[in-house]
């Protein structure tokens, strides 16, 4: 096809030449010239129409028309700034919330790391039925590096929290080829390389440099005090790079060949090698990594895509889809609102549309014109939404860091969330989809109208239009019910979780966990704390409550019914620090703790399950499967234990899972291999602070970075925080949807009022009391609300029922009748508020005036 458009003039010349040729032909045949010219023109038909058809068939006419449409739409919208502002802002609200949700998803799942060729990076791991491995000892790492048949490069890194003068620094120890493989962009200085191994140097991230040194370039050459000793900053990377994990790092230090710690391995696959193939060819290697007793055919090498913070998977999308659905519902509510306003506007524009239709505009052209107006609104809203999304994201982060428990806030790092091309594209696509939702129906409605009445200025109150508007309001109420129910379920569960009785006291208790597997430090720390005058009591344990739980199959001796039972090794002080009362029998004696005696204290639930209706004191428990995956967590040697006491049930693991279904406590002392953590209770009047503890550890020559000190109160807050944040988001979405449906309802009622003004005037003139008129409008409002509520409740119930069958959390109730009732109440109240003002106005209709206007 030729790219030059044939001009209209050229075609006109052809038409002229045709008619002249025909006329000359007729003259040749003997017709008089005048008659011949007339006959030739007649034979051709309408030359104008031919030219028009030529013009319309040309390739560019649609652009011409689109430009016309846009200009016309812009003029129309400009003429009504109130309409423009409300619709753009309404849509922008819905779009910006969805854009924020997508930005987070984009940052954590879709957006590749700012490194060279992220698509071929894979994290290496192995998995067996009993265990998985994500780290490899130095020799295994060397072996992986030697596999040049599979990988272009294998880098290793790890991750830990460190303190620099009381401020948390997220540190990654990296192999010599880390920076040369990833090639992140540096702001200043140089990257680390193989020659830095064992040196006290570091590369810092821009924002950490600003936080710790007060300026990004200022950090270069300065020393950063870490508890393990100072390091010199040799390079600063841009904020776009935060490592290759979903948790950005602040600092990168070279690995110390002498330390020889297990590391995570990330490989860049060779071109032409598929991850599946690489996994197969690493099987033999993986089998050697697994515990010795694992059959090698059960072990698989695993390559996890490592180009983005989290690999995209169907499971992930399925998990996140309810969240996206909630955000989409808000956008839907906004669309319905705009659609409603457009319907109302289309009615006031009936005359204009009728004129255009009667002047020969096709219906398609009118629909296109109205859709263009919608699209223009959507594009403006999309732009506003992007700006709003940037602000919302920033605000959300401020709120997040302001409300998180301080301990968690000091550790948390967020991946960068720029509005990149994907977010732009998403916002644009969402705006486009929204246009179809909110503008198509009104446009189709408007173009389908009887011409004659509209031209005469009759505003035919088309029943189909009213029905459409009512249906929209019903849909809106239904959407807000779904969102409000969800929000209230979340909020009520958060409230009940904060009130949850843990079965022990978290007040004035600090948990100290030892990071990693090395528990040699527990004993000296316990001794140190016991000697500290600020400390009232110290306990050692295999795991602190609210942190970790362990379970193995156990049974009552003499019975064959095995059941997985939680167990914790505790020193006698554990129960007193947590104020757990012994309800039967006795607590452990110091001697039992020292000797690790084969005695046990059981929880009431275990006592009931193992010896229903009997006194458990003196009974024996048989512990099965003495082959644990990790030596420290083991319970080998504990085949039979005798019950000496009973304690009430408590929550040991996640609060959402509720109180333990079973628990067996075993005595232990600080010297035992099973201890992993400590509990500290400071004296009430002392100035005990976790930082002081770290100071003492350092003086004793321990690396304080191995310890994690947090108060149990804060841990409790940390556990409830996700639900708290979720309920806030839910309430925000529910609130916006509710506000939208209130304004939608209000709009419809005001419109009804305007339409029925005459009728109301006549009724009042005939003696109808004001109350009857109010009832008229209230009834309409109540009908729409009731239908909307019914539909919304049905949908919410179905959704939550589905969720309820998936979730197995005992402290969480998804099908919460209270939340349903409260949501109905809230929506009813809102609909009453929406109906109040229009109803009041209806009573002020002056019958005399309406009747005059009628005449």
């Amino acid at each position, binding site marked *: 096809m030729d790219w030059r458009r044939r001009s209209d003039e050229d075609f006109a010349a*052809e038409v002229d*030449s045709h008619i002249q040729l*025909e006329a*000359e032909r007729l003259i040749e045949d003997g017709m008089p010239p005048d008659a011949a010219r007339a006959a030739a023109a007649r034979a*051709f038909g309408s030359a104008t129409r031919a030219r028009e058809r*030529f013009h319309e068939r040309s390739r560019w006419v649609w652009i011409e028309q689109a430009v016309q449409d846009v200009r016309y739409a812009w003029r129309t919208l400009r003429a009504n700034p109130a309409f423009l502002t409300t619709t753009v802002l309404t849509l922008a609200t819905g779009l910006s919330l969805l854009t924020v949700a997508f930005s987070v998803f984009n940052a954590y799942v879709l957006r590749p790391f700012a490194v060279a060729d992220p698509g071929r990076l894979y994290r290496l791991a192995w998995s067996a039925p009993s265990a998985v491995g994500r780290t490899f000892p130095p020799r295994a790492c060397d072996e992986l590096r030697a596999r040049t048949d599979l990988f272009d490069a294998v880098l290793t890194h790890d991750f830990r929290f460190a303190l620099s003068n009381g401020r948390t620094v997220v540190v990654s120890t990296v192999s010599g080829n880390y920076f040369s493989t990833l090639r992140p962009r540096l702001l200043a200085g140089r990257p680390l390389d193989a020659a830095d191994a064992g040196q006290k140097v570091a590369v810092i991230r821009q924002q950490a440099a600003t936080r710790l040194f007060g300026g990004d370039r200022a950090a270069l050459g300065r020393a950063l005090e870490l508890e393990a000793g100072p390091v010199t900053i040799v390079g600063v990377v841009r904020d776009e790079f935060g490592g290759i994990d979903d948790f950005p790092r602040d600092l990168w230090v070279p690995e110390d060949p002498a330390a020889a710690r297990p590391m995570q391995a990330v490989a860049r696959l060779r071109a032409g090698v598929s991850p599946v193939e690489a996994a197969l060819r690493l099987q033999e290697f993986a089998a050697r990594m697994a515990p010795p007793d694992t059959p090698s055919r059960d072990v698989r090498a695993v390559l996890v895509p490592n180009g983005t913070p989290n690999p995209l998977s169907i499971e992930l999308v399925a998990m996140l889809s309810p969240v996206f659905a909630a955000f989409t519902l808000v956008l839907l509510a906004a669309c319905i609102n705009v659609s409603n306003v457009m319907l109302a506007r289309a009615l006031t524009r009936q005359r204009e549309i009728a004129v255009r239709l009667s002047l020969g505009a096709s219906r398609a052209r009118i629909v296109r014109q109205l859709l263009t107006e919608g699209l223009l609104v959507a594009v403006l809203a999309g732009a506003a939404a992007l700006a709003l999304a940037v602000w919302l994201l920033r605000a959300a982060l401020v709120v997040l860091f302001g409300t998180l428990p301080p301990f968690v806030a000091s550790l948390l790092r967020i991946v960068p969330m720029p509005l990149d091309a994907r977010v732009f594209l998403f916002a644009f696509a969402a705006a486009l989809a929204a246009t179809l939702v909110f503008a198509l129906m009104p446009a189709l409605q408007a173009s389908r109208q009887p011409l004659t009445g509209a031209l005469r200025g009759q505003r035919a109150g088309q029943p189909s239009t009213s029905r459409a508007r009512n249906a929209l309001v019903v849909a809106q109420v239904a959407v807000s019910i779904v969102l409000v129910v969800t929000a209230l379920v979340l909020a009520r569960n958060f409230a009940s979780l904060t009130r949850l009785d843990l079965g022990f006291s978290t007040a004035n208790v600090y948990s100290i966990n030892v990071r990693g597997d090395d528990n040699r430090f527990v004993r000296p720390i316990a001794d140190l704390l016991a000697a500290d005058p600020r400390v009232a009591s110290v306990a050692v344990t295999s795991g602190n409550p609210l942190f970790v739980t362990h379970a193995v199959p156990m049974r009552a001796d003499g019975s064959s019914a095995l059941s997985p039972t939680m167990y914790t090794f505790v020193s006698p002080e554990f129960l007193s620090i947590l104020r757990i009362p012994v309800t039967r029998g006795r607590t452990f004696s110091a001697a039992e703790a020292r000797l690790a005696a084969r005695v046990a204290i059981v929880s009431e639930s275990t006592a009931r399950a193992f010896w229903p209706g009997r006194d458990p004191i003196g009974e024996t428990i048989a512990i099965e499967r003495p082959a644990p995956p990790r030596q420290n967590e083991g319970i080998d040697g504990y085949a039979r234990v005798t019950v000496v006491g009973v304690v009430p049930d408590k929550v040991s693991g996640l609060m959402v899972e509720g109180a333990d279904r079973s628990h067996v406590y075993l005595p232990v002392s600080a010297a035992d291999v099973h201890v992993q953590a400590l509990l500290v209770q400071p004296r009430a009047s002392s100035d005990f602070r976790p930082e002081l503890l770290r100071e003492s550890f350092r003086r004793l020559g321990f690396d304080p970075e191995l310890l994690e000190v947090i108060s149990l109160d804060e841990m409790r807050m940390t556990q409830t925080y996700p639900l708290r944040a979720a309920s806030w988001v839910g309430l925000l979405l529910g609130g916006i949807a509710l506000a939208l449906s209130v304004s939608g309802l209000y709009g419809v009622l005001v419109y009804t009022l305007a339409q029925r003004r005459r009728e109301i005037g006549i009724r009042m003139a005939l003696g109808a009391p004001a109350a009857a008129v109010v009832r008229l409008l209230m009834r309409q409002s109540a009908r729409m609300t009731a239908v909307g509520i019914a539909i919304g409740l049905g949908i919410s119930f179905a959704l939550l029922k589905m969720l309820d069958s998936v979730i197995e959390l005992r402290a969480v109730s998804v099908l919460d009748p209270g939340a349903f009732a409260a949501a109905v109440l809230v929506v009813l109240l809102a609909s009453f508020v929406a109906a109040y003002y229009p109803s009041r106005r209806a009573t002020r209709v002056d019958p005399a005036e309406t009747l005059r206007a009628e005449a």
Partner: protein
Amino acid sequence: MSTREKRGRLKDDRPVLMQGTLDVLILRTLLFGAEHGQGIARAIQQTSEGEFLVEHGALYPALQRLEAQKLVSAKWGTSANNRRARYYTLTRHGRDHLTRQSSRWRRLAAAMARVLGPEPERG
């Protein structure tokens, strides 16, 4: 307005041209050499003994379509009586297309004739 006009003329007994019919007629006309629009119109009218082509103007959308499909090419030239005219020529692609279409039409016409049988004698 335009639709009404068309309907008015259709009271005329001449058959309505089916979509694609006109294309074949034009291509067939051009088989004998380059021709301008008026020449094509005349030729179609003469060969079909006045059965086809009500308006000469109706020819042009078809010509435009054929040009866009590269079945014909067009060039301004001079007519026998020294008048400027736009001449249409069959392209090679157009020639192939005509061959295919002609045989299709012949089969269709033959089949229709068989189904309808001989014209009944009147009166």
